[in-house]
């Protein structure tokens, strides 16, 4: 096992992960006590020498942790980052601010399909570069004659210059639904919606069943089929526990509106890189925010509105 690998039990190749068929909250306590007693012996044997892993193995849900426990967990992630990448990182767990509901606007009349956002996102959020290659943003090239129609969309377009005549571009990423099918389907409640609207994943609780991926109508969730390939020199050290901290093999990941940036007041990386200014971000509860001005003055539409997912991600036409 190379030094970049996660400790046994983390990448699915060591000891088994806690993968009980628990779907109801009331059963959680039973599951824990079961694991503590029945599986403890075997787990201790398998995980001896991996103190961190043992602690993770019996860790409660992220939302149940006390501030001290969170601090310990973050410290552990930082320590593991250091082991894996040889770099100092800062892992935070900033919570949602009261009175904030994030909204995202994407101007379809401006996007030129240059894919700058795709790679800015990869860099910011520590996605796996190759094998598996994971892109949280997928830019679709569509025909102006057909409008927004997935039957006439091309994800793999190549061109010397964009925009190409007769085409328009339609980037798709997590829509941060208010009624998220992915959250409903997760058997371990490893994914949930935060008060400011960001749908997050606790990678320590994800068992890799990929139910959420099949539930998501936007193809916004991506699976680490192998240990993510992430060169240490490209690691973004500014991390959030529920966002861009490096993922182990066998977990699902997705756009978090750059939680590590937006929870600290900054724009997401895709907003800042967009050369045409097609991406708008802000607080939906602030009447003076850019996103509210978009909502009030432009033609706004919702992707796959008929599915009643109620996204916090809006497409609009400024012209």
């Amino acid at each position, binding site marked *: 096992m190379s030094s970049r690998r996660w400790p046994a039990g983390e990448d699915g190749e060591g000891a088994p992960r806690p993968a009980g068929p628990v779907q109801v909250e009331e059963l959680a306590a039973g599951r824990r006590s079961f694991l503590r007693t029945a599986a403890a012996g075997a787990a201790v044997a398998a995980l001896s020498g991996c103190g961190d892993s043992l602690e993770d193995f019996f860790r409660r849900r992220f939302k149940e942790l006390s501030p001290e426990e969170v601090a310990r967990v973050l410290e552990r992630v930082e320590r593991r980052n250091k082991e894996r990448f040889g770099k100092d990182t800062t892992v935070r767990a900033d919570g949602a601010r009261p009175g904030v509901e994030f909204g995202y606007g994407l101007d379809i009349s401006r996007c030129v399909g*240059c*894919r700058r956002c795709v*790679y800015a996102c990869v860099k910011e959020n520590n996605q796996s570069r190759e094998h598996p290659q994971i892109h949280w943003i997928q830019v679709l090239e569509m025909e102006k004659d057909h409008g927004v129609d997935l039957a006439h969309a091309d994800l*793999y377009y190549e061109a010397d210059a964009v925009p190409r005549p007769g085409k328009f571009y339609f980037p798709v990423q997590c829509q941060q639904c208010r009624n998220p099918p992915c959250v409903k389907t997760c058997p371990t409640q490893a994914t949930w919606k935060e008060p400011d609207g960001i749908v997050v994943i606790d990678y320590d609780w994800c068992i890799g069943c990929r139910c959420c991926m099949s539930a998501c109508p936007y193809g916004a969730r991506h699976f680490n089929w192998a240990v993510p390939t992430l060169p240490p020199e490209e690691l973004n050290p500014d991390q959030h526990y529920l966002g861009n901290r490096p993922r182990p093999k066998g977990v699902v990941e997705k756009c978090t509106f750059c939680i590590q940036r*937006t929870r600290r007041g900054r*724009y997401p990386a895709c907003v800042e890189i967009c050369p045409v*200014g097609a991406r708008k971000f802000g607080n939906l509860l602030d009447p003076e925010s*850019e996103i509210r001005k978009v909502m009030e003055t432009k033609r706004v539409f919702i992707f796959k509105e008929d599915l009643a997912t109620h996204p916090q991600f809006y497409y609009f036409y*400024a012209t």
Partner: protein
Amino acid sequence: MPRTIAKLVLAAALLGPAATGRAAEAGTPAAGPAGGREKLVQAETPPFSEGIFPCSSCHGDLPKNGARRELAFHDEQQSIFSHDPEHLWCLDCHDLQDRDVLHLINGTKVPFAESYRLCGQCHGDKLRDWRLGIHGKRIGQWDGAKVYFLCVNCHNPHSPRFKGVTNVVVEGKATVAPSLEFLKPEPRPRRPEEQRR
């Protein structure tokens, strides 16, 4: 009494746009696009063509000729000029008397750094959207200080249709300048069958 109110309302209606217009004109760059509720910082303006500014270094000694004509000089601007060339020419925006500034239709002189006031004379809808943060780009904090870009950071005023932008450094600060070439897209994602299993 109702007549007084009506008069007042009328006066407000008449004054309203004029007052906002003046405020907009007097707007310092910092108060440029929005009402100044949050801190807005103007990005560095894109660089001039090399050796072209200040214009008065050449034009100061030349006779002032306001007649519309093909110029024997400034070929790089004339060759790309596609900003309604049927109707516009140099001196519709550049000032004949003071070559180092621009001027509005009403004759008000405007420094190059505030050229958005000039653009907004015709492109009022874009100016309005830009002030709200809908048109154009902002970077920084969604809830605080942000940097906004000017029309000319993305649009070449002589060939204004958006093509692409390039990153440049002006006086030690990173900013963007319009390019005449369209952007080349980044590599396409791998197809599932191209991923190693």
